[in-house]
């Protein structure tokens, strides 16, 4: 079972993603801040991080940069309220990005796709 870490400062979003993705068969952990996310990443194994860009007084991009630097094999999907974050080149470091929506179909499809891609890379020994 793949383990996902959802990082979002909105409790209701964490709750929604957690419920929906658990129903899809994933084991989901959540974090509200960058420090909490880093702590969990250091202590537990995850297969993928779902990361909100705009955290309270923090930038999800900072966490993305740290993950890419320290855990380069960890895929990250950026979740954002507004597509203009694509203009930030740092956001290109992410494996995928989705615009938040009440319809979680796209999010679920991206999670599946990115995890499959990670599995393929592992199988290929990359």
């Amino acid at each position, binding site marked *: 079972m793949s383990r996902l870490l959802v990082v979002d400062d*909105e409790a209701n979003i964490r709750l*929604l993603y957690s419920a929906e993705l658990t129903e899809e068969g994933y084991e989901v952990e959540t974090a509200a801040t960058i420090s909490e996310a880093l702590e969990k990443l250091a202590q537990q194994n995850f297969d993928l991080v779902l990361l909100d860009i705009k955290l309270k007084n923090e930038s999800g991009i900072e966490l993305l940069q740290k993950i890419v630097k320290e855990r380069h094999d960890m895929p990250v999907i950026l979740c954002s*309220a507004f*597509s203009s974050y694509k203009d930030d080149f740092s956001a290109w470091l992410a494996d995928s990005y989705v615009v*938040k929506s*009440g*319809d979680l179909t796209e999010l679920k499809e991206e999670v599946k796709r990115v995890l499959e891609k990670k599995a393929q890379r592992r199988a290929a020994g990359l």
Partner: protein
Amino acid sequence: MDWECCWDRDTVVMGECPNITEGDEDLLASKARRILEKCCECERFRRDLGRFNESGHPLAPIFAVLHNDYRRQKSQIQSLVSFLDSKTLETRFLHELGSVLQSSVDLDEVLSVALTAITAGKGFGMNRAFLLLADQERHLLRGHLAIGPRSIEEAGQTWQEIVSNDMDLQTMARSFQQYKLRSERDKFQDILDKLVVPLDDLNHIIVRVFEDKYPLLVHDAFNNPAVDPAFARLMGVDTFLVLPLISRHRRIGAIIADNFITHRPITDDDLRSIETFAFPVAFAIERASLYDRLQEQVDKLQLANQKLQEQQELLVRMEKMALVGRITSSVAHSIRNPLTVIGGFARSILKTTAPTDAKRGFIESIVTETQQLEGVLDEVLTYSDSLYPTRDMWDVNQLVETAQREIQDRLIRQDFTVHSHPGQNLPPVWVDYKQTAYCIRTIILEDMDGLEHGNISISVAQHGSEIDIRIEDKDRKLSEDELEAMLTPFAETCQMGSGLSLALCRSMLDKQNIPFLVVAPPEGGVVYTIKLPTRKEELL
């Protein structure tokens, strides 16, 4: 002894002396003046003097000597006065010329004055004058301007006009600059084009004049070994003078002048007069050229300053853009999260709600309404993003392909087939990539809206300086009202979309000055055409 002349009489009456005419009445009673001014030149007096000489008087030969010497000195004085008069005229002319040249920094005015001075009757009175100017690197002398008639008929007409107008030099030069400068240049263009002299060609007569730094009168040009035969043929005259224009050791140019029409001989006196004219002309030409260059630099500086101001304005705009970006990001975050939570949980609840449950309809309404609000939010945010397009040169085929790929899932889900016809050898287009791609995506999605399957054709082709992206759906049927409503913001149609998307596309493309045409023929089908520019100027 009876004297034939009236020199021995104190007074005479009018008619007694053949040399006293009307206007000389005061000499009738002035014996001394009459003798000096009239008698000494009178034949009667000479005969009286001869008779006196024959009389054997010892003073007679002395009188003859004095008389001859007096006449010689008088002739000398007259010729000196004449010379002085001509020099006075010349000095006045040079003074007038100098005043005009000193007061002008307009190169065309200076050249007009110089050439007018050479050819005007009040000036040096030559028939034609050609001005050659050195290029900036001082490698070549090139024919720049010429003045004068090309035929006897034209000469007669021009000189008649000059005589009847009776203008001073400055007025004449101004008139020339205003009415004739261009036509004279055109008239002599064939000769001017061929008047090209390399300044390192030391054998050329003009370059040699620079070495001597003195005007040269060239005689027998057609047979003169010092003159290049081609140059002599070009000038078409046997005699001409070459005037070097040198200012502070710099070779500014040269003037060639001749009497092509009248063939009046050019004298050494002409040459000396014209020599004094060379320096102020050379100096004025150099000063006017420097002023021209200075003006050019000032213009460049002004342009740079203008660009700097534009950059500053752009910076201010960019700051505003950043502010707009921050505001929209904040608004998006504040609205999107609650919508996501409401819509998301409504869908979750819906999944576990039985179809027969009375509340299912309410939950479905929440899902639909949040979905619609999300759509409106997307459009509003995209619109705010579109306020400041960022343009660059892009490959239009790639642009269409990317836009199509981004909606590939939706195309498959709705069983839509897209037939692509990319253009061949197309130049890049000058557009905001993100916005144009959004418009292509939106047009296709709006066309697909509400349909379960269909066919769309996308073709790219160049028409003149524009590249057309043509999106066609032959199956879609739209009335004129529906078409109009579709392109009007917030006007909902039964047929298609939320009513904002295509209007937003039009607004975005309008901001880039990109024409967007939608045509729905009565027989059916819809054709959307976006005409993309290939040149930056078309957007200015």
